[in-house]
């Protein structure tokens, strides 16, 4: 039987992988996917806590409800983000973040 700590460990691992991907990878689509990974890590934590902190014999559904919100918002974010990436590619013919430094001071 997996304990809460196992779940949290996996979740932290996922988050670390996501963050590492965001910071290190140069392909903007991969960066985007890593971002989703971090969101999933957060979702996993929420669900784990909901499961392991029952009230009156039932899981705490507040946490799970929040997960649904996160998923919804993430879906919207993907829609907008991918659209931006497509537009960016059309404008600059690249999705390599090293080439996208026009905001450099």
């Amino acid at each position, binding site marked *: 039987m997996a304990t809460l700590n196992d779940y949290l460990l996996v979740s932290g691992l996922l988050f670390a992988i996501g*963050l590492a991907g*965001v*910071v*290190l*990878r*140069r392909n*903007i689509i991969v*960066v985007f996917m890593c971002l989703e990974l971090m969101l999933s890590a957060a979702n996993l934590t929420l669900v784990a806590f909901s499961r392991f902190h029952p009230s009156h014999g039932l899981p705490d559904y507040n946490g799970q409800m929040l997960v649904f919100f996160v998923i919804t918002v993430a879906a919207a974010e993907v829609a907008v983000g991918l659209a931006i990436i497509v537009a960016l590619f059309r404008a600059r013919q690249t999705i390599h*973040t*090293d080439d*996208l*430094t*026009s*905001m*450099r*001071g």
Partner: protein
Amino acid sequence: MNLAWLLLFLPFAASLANQLVLKKTGLAPLVSVASALATFILAVMLLGTQGSAAFHWASIGDFHLDIGLQLDTLSTGMMLVVTGIGLPVHVFSLAYMKDDDGKARYFTGLSLFMFSMTGIVLADNFIMTFIFWELVGFSSYLLIGHWYRKPSAADAAKKAFITNRIGDFGFMIGILMLWGITGQLSFDKMKPGLEAFQCANPTIWVGVLSATVLCIFCGAVGKSAQVPLHVWLPDAMEGPTPVSALIHAATMVAAGVYMLFRVQFTLGCEVFQQLPASDVIAWTGGITALLAALMATQQDDIKRVLAYSTLSQLGYMVMAVGFVAGDAGMFHLFTHAWFKALLFLGSGAVIFACHHQQNIWQMGGLMKTMPLTTLTFAAGCAALIAVPGTSGFFSKELILDAAYQAGSPLFWVGAFVAVLTPFYMTRLFVVAFLGKPRSDHAAHAREVGPLMLVPLAVLALLAISSGYSFLNRFAPALPHHAGEFHFNLVAGVSMAALVIGVVAGWRLYAGKDHDPICIPLLRERFKFDWFYDTILIRYFQDLLASIIHFFDEFLINGLLVGGLSRSAEGFGNLFRRVQSGSLQGYAFVFGLGVILVIYFTVFI
């Protein structure tokens, strides 16, 4: 008093209307002449009235400034001179400036000048005097530089303005010192403060008051063109001749004498007499009279001869003020105004007829071609060289008499100047009007029109007769016995001087075609201009300028302004590194930040 306010603001309204509305219409000269006529009538109506009116202008703490008018014998008499010269000059200008493109500008300047001069004369406090003092300087600048396309005229205008600024600086200090001593700025309220100051400081009041009077005298040295600030007046002859008649002979340059007399009057003659400053004033005037008369003997330009003669006569007036005989000085101012304006307008007519030829050696024989002008000019000459019976004789007599009474060696200086004056005027008259024409312009000169002749004739009458008691009672100030004649040593000396001067001038210059004597030092005007140009400007001013330039360039520009901008730029450059534009960089820093926040919230 309403008439007095009208007298002050009418010329201003005329100049405003000319400048803003009538510039293009050709009505500007008529408006100005009408305003001059109206002010003359007003001045006659106000003659001899007393009164004062003021309105409050500004307050700074306990310090109150009024704009006020003061009418008394002095100011109304002076107004008669100003407007009485102003009117003929305006009329003369109608003819003289007939074909000038900048006619409207010229008449605007004249009206502005009339306004400023009225302000000086009627002012009842020193601040107002100072304001209008600067305004006459400004209008004089405009009018000297009327032909501003000519570099010499533009330079002369600048020179007049800057030279006057030097004197005005001292004047301003003097006004402030007088305010510090008496606590008052109005002329008629100063006396109690002065007496209190005398009682409180019995030992030092003479010195302090002397310094004050000398500072105020600086203003008069500038405006009345006394040595060493006289250099602007001969150059100011670059302006149109009627302007020279009005501003640089009769009224503005006399403002210095008027103001000095006002100060003498305000402080009281017996106080003034005790000040060492009065000796300085007398000597400055005497030296100016002497140097200017010497320089006048060697000038070839008809207007410059008259300009130096004006300097010399102003020197007489200042000398009279220094001898605490300011009323004699004011009487000379009164008579001098008429005959010197006449001489300048006469020279203007000659210059006009000779197609702007001003060199007297290119003239000659004008008596035949321009008899009426010659006649009026001769009347002016007679008054200037103090032929007995003319106005100049009475007034110059009184000044010499004052010098004689004071027992000062300046009496003999004055007597020598009285020899030089007839000498150079005879030279001028003989060379320009008698003999044969020496150029085509002079040979084909024609008598000028009535618009010029009428002012000349009126002024000629006044030049001869203004010394007599039926006219001299209108003078701003009048000594006793003015217009009477008693034969004494002074009169004898002055008549001998006249005879010597005329005979010498006639013997030397009658029938000559070129100047038989040449004294380079006098031609180069005692090297005053050379001294100012090469010594003062090159060494002193340029040295000062280079020091200031150093401060400006290195301290202000390099350290303060440039330093600030450079440090801002440096900080900017430092911070632009942060703004790398790389997405992952931001994310990394953001992650670090989050970790830090967690560390602080959880573990500390």
